[in-house]
């Protein structure tokens, strides 16, 4: 009873499915990039593999990363890995996007320009986005908005 009350008290968006991007939720290493991205739609919506592959190819084209279609996780650059993880997260339908410690993935980036560019490329595919990071990283985000 108490649990049900507590659940009702939660903001509605917390009950929505989450699309997670985190260093702790890695890509599956024995799957190609396209399979990693397509997996969620194939599993939850039973989307046929050729259709899922086409969809992934179109999404990778947005980032000019069609060349990584058949690659696996160890052969990706950090930018490619981040974009693939982002695409995988937005495959969760009606998702709230949660990006946790993005600079653990984009470790060579000194600011959030690439992060914002990537998010704006797929902004039609998620409803809301929250970024969680350590407070000592805030200057990396501050550099971008000029404060």
């Amino acid at each position, binding site marked *: 009873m108490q649990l049900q009350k507590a659940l009702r008290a939660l903001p509605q968006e917390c009950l929505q499915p989450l699309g997670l991007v985190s260093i702790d939720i890695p890509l599956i290493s024995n799957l190609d990039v396209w399979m990693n991205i397509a997996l969620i739609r194939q599993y939850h919506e039973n989307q*046929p593999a050729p259709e899922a592959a086409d969809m992934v190819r179109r999404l990778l084209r947005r980032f000019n990363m069609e060349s990584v279609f058949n690659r696996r996780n160890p052969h990706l650059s950090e930018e490619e890995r981040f974009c693939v993880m982002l695409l995988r997260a937005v495959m*969760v339908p009606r998702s709230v996007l949660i990006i946790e410690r993005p600079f653990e993935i984009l470790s060579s980036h000194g600011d959030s320009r690439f992060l914002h560019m990537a998010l704006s490329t797929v902004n039609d595919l998620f409803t809301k986005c929250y970024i969680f990071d350590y407070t000592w990283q805030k200057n990396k985000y501050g550099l971008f908005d000029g404060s």
Partner: protein
Amino acid sequence: MVEPIQYIGRKTIGICSAFSEMLVFSSRVLTRALKRKTYNSATKMVLINQLYFTSVQVLPLFLLISVIFGSLLVGSVFQAIKNLGLAEYLGKILMGSVVTELSPFVTVMLITLRSSSAINTEIAVMKVNKELKTLEAFQIDVIDYLFVPRVVSGILSVVFLSALFSIAVLSSGFLFLNLVFGMSADVYAGDLLNSASFSDILITLLKCVTFGFFITLIPIRQGLTASDELTSIPVSVLKGMVNVFIAMVIIEVLSLIIRFI
């Protein structure tokens, strides 16, 4: 005096609890494997890949072994029983030894060496790399997505490769007998068909299904016991392979007991 008894007690409890856990895990996987809902686009893709890696990739080597083994085995068996004046029992010996015993055993040995160890390592590596957590985070059931396709592929592979082994051994054996001893196809086929019994074939089929189920399920279960450290992978594979070997012996013994009842 108390310490050895405590030790035996602890070991017995350990074995019993591991056995009961294995049974619970088996029933969970089996239940899912029988549900139609389990087979979505992602699961089917894994199943096809697993069938390719387990059954198709191994075919050239498997057929070569079967043909060499078949010619030599059938030839030497025939030579030996001919010297003893028992040539009319060739069919019974071939059906009783090659089809019902040797084929499932050779097939299961080959698949265990090649695929069970790979499955065990794969699951352990996924555990260490936190990839199982990834599946959880996206609400993908590991039993449906990872375990069921591997177990189903194991069962199908053992059944089909075992049948193929029997066909290859018997065919190459016939060619050898025909060329060396001049045996005709009618005599050979008649001998085999007269010696085939439905119950033997049914028991062999059940044995293949049981082999296929456990040589994939045990490595999966052992792979899941890996910790977060890389060094736990070889330990998990080692234990998995030993357990698979024990399971193979138990299944073989049980099938022999059933056959003799």
